[in-house]
Every structure is written in C-alpha cells, then in structure tokens.
C-alpha cells in the first residue's frame, strides 16, 4: 500500500472537520469498547489469562526460527507447501506464480491485512486476473475503488450504513436498500457466485500452529470457510511472527482475541485448517500453500521494539485510543492505524516516512492496559522517539527548546533566575481573567485553547521567603544543598 503516514497531521486536520466521519466514529465506543468491557467480565482471571497469552506469544518469538522449522515440517508432512516472502514484492510474485501453476483465472480472498502491505489485489489485477474480496468490509472498500481500510478488524468502520447503501445501489445497480440485513443479503448474493467459480482462495492467518502445521482463521461471516475450502487452491498469507507452538496455546489466545476485538466470547467461525484434502475427505483444497511473510518483521525482532510482534491484531489498542477515536484510521496513512500502527508502520516502511506517528500519542496508556498480550505500547513509541531524537529527525527548534529546558533545569541557580523572569513575562500576557489568549512560538496550544497564566511568583521564591520567617523550614531547605 502507498505510504501516506508523512501527512498524518494534515490528514488528521481534515478528518477532525469531517462531520459525517466524526458521527461514524462514535460507534467505536458502543461497538467495541463497551462490548469488550462486558465480555472481559466473563473471565475469572483476566490478568492471569493475559499473562499466559503474553508468555505464549513471547516464547514463540524468542525461538521463532525453531518454531518456524517445526511448523514447516508438519505442514509439509500434511501435503502443504511452505514458502517464505522476504519483501512485499515477493508476496505478490509468489501468489502470481502459484496462480500461473494452477491455471487460475479468478481468485477470492478472505481478509488479510498482510496482503494490504504489498497491495496484492492490484498486483493480481495487473496480471490480468480477477480478484474478489469476500469479507464484507473489504468488499465494500474494493467496490469503492479500493479505498484503504481504516481499521484492522472493521476495515470499513469509517462508513455509515447510508454510505454503504448508496455505494451498493451505485455498484450493484439494484434498488437502494435501507436495512443492514437487506444490505448483507445483497452482498451475499453478489459474492456467492464468485465462491463457486473461483479457482483459488487467499486467506490471511490469525495464527500458524507449529505442532500441527495448521493455520487458524477467526471470522464472523463464514467467508473464510468458503474461501479456503471451495476453490481447488488455498493460499494462506501471514507474518512469520504469527506462530504459536501448540493447539493448547491457540485455545488460550482464543479466550482473549474475540473478547478483545469485538467483545464476543467466541467469534462465529474459527477455522483450523491442516493440509490438503486427503483421500475420502469431503472438505478442503487440493493444493495448499503457506506464504510466511517477513517484510521487516525480522528487523523488528532484532530491535528494541520487538515486543510489538506479540500483537494478535485484535484492534483493542486503536478502539481505546483517544487519538484514533477522533482522527480515525485513515489519518495514519498505512495498513495498521492506532497505537500498534504507530510502531509497526515506522518499522516496516521506514522511520523517515512516518515521523509523526510515534509522537502522535498522549502516552495515556489506555492501549497498554487493554492489550491482551501486554505490549507496552507507549514505551515502544518512546523508543522510536529516542531514535528520532538520536538521528536528529525532529525539527531543530524542538530539539533546541528541549535541550535548553534540560540545561536550565539541571542548574538550580540558573533555573531560579530564568523561571522568575519567564513567568513574569508570561504573566504580562494575561488578560484580566488570568488567561493568555495567544502564546508566541507555541500557537499549537492557544489556537483553540487559552493558557492559564502563571500566578506571578514561583513556589521556590515564596517558599524561600517563608523559610526566612520560619527557622525550622530554613534549616530543612539549607540541608539540601
């Protein structure tokens, strides 16, 4: 996907003033936040389960090479082919190679965010083949000229029912439907014909299970089941980090994934697919391929933000992020929005392309406390801020201001003088209500807010004056020097 993360601020500005979008974004709170909260109360021990999930994911990453080898052996033993893609371009090339090998003309896809990274649909169409997205959200975006997804669980979350109704009416050429059920049925009817005529199905993979060589796919619409079993070829694409050692591990993670994502105890469908269709078996593809994608993941593993790879893509961090809730997913300018995106995007596309993302957080840590695998998201954002600072990627004036403050704060006498002068100057800018309406140099504060003016004398001044009147206090103050 084209990277637009360098325009975060400009895009966020537009989104903040898009009244329809602002209305659409309000559903995050009842659709995701409230439902998650109530679903988590079903667990006897949320923190214990969360700690177990963290451990499972971390152990898999600690010995990733070993688990990948075990996965590969077990998948091959069941007749599947395991391929590795080092770059996004490799993903597209491998898919087209497989398509050519099996004379594929039409491809159906269930949801795969990894395939968004490489713009796979465009590559497929560029090769003259047909591709149809079957996840309802992805389908909506595809028929809207491949609009980018704005959320990893609900790709079309930014759209209202009315906007979808208009789009279906325009694209399907049928009378405009009003109800969500009717709209779903219309999409279903459109998609059914494709399931039956496709030669190849592409799915993502929520997890790869090492001990069985299986892929686990979590959905609500049943489209992944059809996509992976009706066509003769199934290609499952996901990141190399999605390995879990055992089915038991999968069971633990599944206690948290649907609850964290959509507030469901369990999603409508959980497919665990192992190998090709065997003799006498009714279901399954005749040819099964796994494409395990690196595309920057091994660099993350070698970095100090490696914990981000524990991510199980539930979307809870973005659902609970006050910034995401207000600017929406498109502002972030690439596949993964919100707190996790502000770490993965700079790591996958280059820090220079996404300088604002690690900064675009209040560090409130609401994301960190809901993350089912305990990724310390603000700490990782700070690690990237450190890289930006070290590599002098921030504006000179920002660096100068910070260093000046630190210089002064490290020298108590200088601090005393500088702050006395500074706050008196600031005080002079106040109006009669004690508010500063416009601050020079830091207009970002006062464009839409006042700045309450300082009281006029510092605590240190006042305390020193008081200490002179109170011998006990003076002694205490003196003892610190």
């Amino acid at each position, binding site marked *: 996907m084209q990277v637009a993360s360098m325009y975060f601020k400009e895009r966020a500005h537009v989104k903040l003033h898009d009244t329809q979008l602002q209305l659409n974004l309000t559903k995050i709170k009842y659709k995701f936040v409230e439902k998650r909260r109530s679903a988590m109360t079903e667990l006897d021990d949320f923190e214990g389960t969360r700690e177990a999930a963290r451990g499972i994911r971390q152990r898999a990453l600690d010995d990733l090479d070993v688990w990948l080898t075990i996965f590969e052996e077990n998948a091959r033993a069941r007749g599947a082919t395991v391929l590795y893609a080092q770059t996004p371009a490799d993903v597209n090339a491998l898919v087209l190679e497989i398509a050519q090998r099996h004379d594929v003309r039409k491809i159906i896809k269930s949801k795969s965010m990894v395939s968004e990274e490489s713009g796979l649909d465009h590559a497929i169409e560029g090769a003259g083949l047909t591709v149809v997205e079957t996840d309802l959200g992805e389908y909506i975006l595809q028929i809207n000229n491949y609009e980018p997804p704005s959320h990893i669980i609900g790709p079309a979350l930014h759209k209202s029912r009315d906007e979808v109704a208009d789009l279906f009416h325009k694209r399907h050429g049928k009378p405009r439907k009003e109800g969500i059920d009717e709209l779903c049925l219309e999409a279903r009817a459109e998609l059914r014909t494709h399931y039956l005529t496709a030669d190849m199905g592409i799915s993502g993979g929520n997890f790869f299970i090492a001990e069985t060589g299986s892929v686990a796919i979590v959905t609500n619409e049943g489209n992944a089941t059809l996509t992976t079993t009706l066509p003769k070829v199934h290609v499952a694409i996901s990141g190399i980090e999605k390995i879990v050692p055992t089915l038991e591990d999968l069971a633990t993670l599944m206690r948290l994934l649907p609850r964290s994502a959509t507030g469901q105890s369990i999603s409508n469908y959980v497919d665990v697919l192992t190998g090709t269709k065997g003799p006498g078996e009714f279901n399954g593809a005749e040819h099964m391929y796994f494409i395990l994608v690196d595309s920057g993941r091994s660099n993350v593993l070698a970095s100090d933000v490696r914990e981000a790879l524990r991510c199980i893509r539930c979307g809870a961090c973005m659902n609970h992020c006050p910034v995401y809730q*207000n600017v929406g997913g498109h502002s972030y300018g690439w596949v993964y929005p919100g707190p996790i995106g502000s770490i993965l995007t700079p790591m996958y596309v280059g820090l220079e392309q996404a300088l604002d993302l690690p900064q675009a957080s209040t560090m*409130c*840590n609401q994301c960190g406390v809901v993350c089912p695998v305990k990724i310390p998201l603000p700490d990782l954002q700070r690690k990237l801020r450190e890289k930006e600072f070290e590599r002098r990627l921030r504006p000179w004036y920002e660096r100068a201001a910070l260093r000046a403050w630190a210089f002064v*704060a*490290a020298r108590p006498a200088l601090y005393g003088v500088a702050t006395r002068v500074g706050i008196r100057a600031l005080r002079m800018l106040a109006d009669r209500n004690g508010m500063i309406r416009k601050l020079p140099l830091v207009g970002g504060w006062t464009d839409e807010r006042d700045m*309450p003016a300082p009281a006029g004398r510092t605590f240190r001044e006042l*305390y020193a004056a008081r200490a002179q009147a109170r011998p006990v206090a003076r002694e205490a103050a003196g*003892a*610190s020097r």
Partner: protein
Amino acid sequence: MRVGFFVTCLVDLMRPSIGFAAIKLLESGGADVFVPASQTCCGQPAYNSGDRADTITLARKVVEEFERCDYVVAPSGSCSGMIKTHYAELFADDPAWSSRVTALAAKTYELTDFLVSVLKVERVPGTFAGTITYHDSCAGLREMGVKSQPRALLGRMEGVRLSEMAECETCCGFGGTFAIKFGEISSRLADNKCQHIVTNGAETVVLGDLGCMLNIEGRLRRRGDATRVMHVAEVLAGDLPPGA
C-alpha cells in the same frame, strides 16, 4: 517521618498555591516535610521526547536530592509516576545507580495516595461546599493506581457532593509536548473532556495533575465556560493565605 516534597516544575511555575496546600495537608497528617531547595524538574519532557541523556542527568539530580528522605511525595501522578515507574529503565545498565533509583521509586507516592495509604488521614483541614466532578489523570490512574484515594478524601469533606462525569478516565489530551506538537488533536480531546464536564453540571472539576488542569481550564475558558478547575490539594487544604 521525613517526607521529601517534590513540588514539580509546573506547580513551581504556574500554581505555587498547590504546593503550599500540599505541604499543609502533609503536615496536618503528621509528616515532617522537607523541601529540597535545589529541586527543579523530574525530566519527563526530555524523556518523552526521546532525549535520554538529559533525562538521566535530571533523574540523578532528583535521586541525590531526595534519597535521604523516608518518602517522596508529589502533587502529581505524572511526575511521581516518572520517578516510580520510569527511572529504573534509564539506569538498567548501571548497577550502582540502578539500586539507588529502585530504592527511591519504592518510597515515591502521589499526594492523595500518600495521605490515604501511608498517613491514613481521617480528617482534612479544608472546607468546601458544592458539587465536584473528578478527572482521573492518566499517569495517576494507570501508573500510580490513584482512583479511590482522592474520592475517599473528598468524600470525607462535609459539603462536598461528588458527581462522576462520563469517561472520567479518558485522557484530556494534554500529553506534555503533544499538546503543542498536535495542538489541534489535543484541543479536540480537551473539548471532549469539557463536554463531559459541562454535561455533568458540577460546579467544580477537581484533578490531581497540573498538565490536565492547564489543558482543561484553558479549553473551558475558550469555550466561554466558567466551571471552576481546582487541584485536589487546594480543595482538601481549604483556604490559603493570599499570595500563596
């Protein structure tokens, strides 16, 4: 019990009255308050901007100033959270400093938490009449576990009626330098917070962090709203001498 009082730079510069209110509360709770005169800033602005070297300099300064106290108390969840939850990581490769920092972290408290958990304060000196809605600051809540403590203390004041606003735990949008770098987004988050405050209808919004205070008060006033914004220490300590 020798309690080192960490004023915090924002209180020092913007609202010294909060510092005096906090000292009054600590003393009335039986603490022997010690205020190192050389104290300045905990280093959080540098830390959250990725400037580790300057953060380490300031962190060492704080450790040297306060390590001889039995406790360190700050009228801020954010600054006490910096010492308690972030300093250790800065010195992970420096065993000598690491143990000093860890020892300091263990005795560092946010003001209301200290009043309730350590001093076990039953009565507070202030008087107050009116409806209060409490805003939970992010660091206070999620780093320092401050939630029930300020409410318990306020609840003991005759004349205080507590009324919870919607989304009291949601960030007000301050975020330190975020408020300047992303002024427009920050202002929107502040506006959402103000909307909840106004909808709640309380006469006073009370909170425990200066950053949130400046942000919320600044946005309320720009909206033309006169809802009073007070630090929890000011409410609990009550009337203060003029000029303080």
